[in-house]
């Protein structure tokens, strides 16, 4: 059983690495938009599937062939209400402007990630993707965009806990599960720049991908990005 789980985890890592390779230089997040050569480190906290704190990094890379700036990013998040290293998420991805007409900009974000949890019933590790569209205006000193997105756990390793097996369901199956969850979100993000620091607010609503209610049906975070 242990060998099988190790094998499964190796496969998961292989999948993860392969996906990263496929997306080239993919690598941060509640930033607004970066010009080529700019970098930022970001900190974000608030309610987003619990009380969460995240740290991230992003940089602007010029893509001459598309005449666009690609913004790869990486972000690590922890559920911090009760400090617990088992409730975490890590994602890498990239943002790029798709349409830019006058003051209006439409950008898309694609990210791949892993999320984990350990609770009173089971422990789990999910391989996830996130897609988001951001539409609005990026100015020199401020930005405001509407955002909509879809996050999905495509493959999740679930190991049922002893309490659950002993008291509820002894035959619960451990292993990889496909398509365990998906969340749609819609909201707004905006910020102002003061010197090298950008302050960002995000807020919106969540539903599952089949439009079922979630126990925390909204998100609201505040973030700060240091540009250099």
């Amino acid at each position, binding site marked *: 059983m242990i060998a099988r789980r190790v094998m499964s985890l190796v496969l998961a890592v292989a999948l993860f690495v392969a996906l990263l390779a496929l997306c080239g230089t993919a690598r941060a997040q509640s930033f607004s938009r970066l010009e080529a050569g700019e970098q930022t480190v970001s900190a974000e906290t608030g309610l987003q*599937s619990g009380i969460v704190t995240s740290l991230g990094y992003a940089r602007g890379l010029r893509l001459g062939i598309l005449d666009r700036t690609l913004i790869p990013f990486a972000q690590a998040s922890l559920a911090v209400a009760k400090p617990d290293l088992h409730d975490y998420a890590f994602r890498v991805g990239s943002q790029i402007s798709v349409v830019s007409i006058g003051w209006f900009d439409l950008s898309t974000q694609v990210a791949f990630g892993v999320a984990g949890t350990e609770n009173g019933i089971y422990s789990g590790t999910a391989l996830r993707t996130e897609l988001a569209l951001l539409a609005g205006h990026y100015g020199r000193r401020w930005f405001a965009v509407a955002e909509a997105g879809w996050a999905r756990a495509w493959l999740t390793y679930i190991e049922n806990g002893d309490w659950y097996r002993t008291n509820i369901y002894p035959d619960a199956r451990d292993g990889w599960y496909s398509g365990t969850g998906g*969340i749609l979100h819609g909201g707004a993000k905006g910020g102002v720049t003061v010197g090298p620091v950008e302050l960002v607010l995000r807020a919106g609503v969540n539903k599952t991908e089949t439009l079922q209610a979630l126990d925390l049906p909204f998100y609201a975070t505040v973030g700060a990005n240091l540009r250099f």
Partner: protein
Amino acid sequence: MRPIQTAALLMMAAGLGACDVHDPSEAGNLVPKTVDEDPTIPSIALAGTVFHYETFGDPTRPAIIFLHGGPGRDSRDMLLLKDRYDGYALADDHFVVNWDQRGTGLSRRHDCDVFSLDRIDADLDELVDRVSPGRPVILIGHSWGAMYATLYINHHPEKVAGAVLMEPGPLNGAMFESIKGDLYDMDVFSEWLNDDVWEGQLLTPDDHARADYHRLLGMRDAQPKFHDVNPAPVWRLGAVASKCVMNSGIKDGKAVYDFTDHLAAYTTRVLFIASSENEVTGTAFQQRQRQFYPSADLVTIPDSPHEMQWSHPAETVAAIRSYLTEVE
């Protein structure tokens, strides 16, 4: 695509293919099968659905119907009440019926719009008619099950020969409003609440199996004032039943149900059993609730939490036996 990337993808696909990947929506994986997926589960079809249903004792004897808690829990934690204590079992002189209510436990699942207080009243009415035609039954309910018993007595007093109400939840909206702030630990920094919402990163309640599995997260720690340190087991929670039965008694965020408005017509004596440790719906609360019945006794089980039928079954059966001796 570069050859190495293609090779990595193919190897991964082959590896995942060899791996057993389960469907989280399929009953039997994360949660047990219901009567619909496993025909060997004892069941009864009535009221347009199929219930997980077991009986104990001689069907010609007066019927006792157990009513489990919730809404959305199941009948597993009532099972100890049918066991023998001090040489006596309820099935010695009764026909005992234990069942999972609509959409809970191992009973058939339904969508939310099927659930209403009228519907569940009709479910129990059909069950009473089936197991004890023309003869009133004894109802023994715990927590929500004792509320359910009161709902039924309120509508069908002539069909109930007696009732044991083990720590019922609020019997009307006013009682609910008086304790609603104490029912759940809603501290935003509590571990159970954050585990509950964080889980959305991995698993979301998009079908019955996943919703029932997710619902378990609150089972151990969400109600600390009830002092069920190691909660009684369930077969399988009914997440949709839980949410939708509760919502059927709530309007614009306020509890509007009333299971007590015709209880004055029910003059048979009922027994309330309370636990000594429950800080919310324990003895003091039940002292207030017994006033809704024209005739009601109250017994407290010493050192017991809310789920006294699981933690203190012998003492609970002794109290029930004493009551039945007097009322029958």
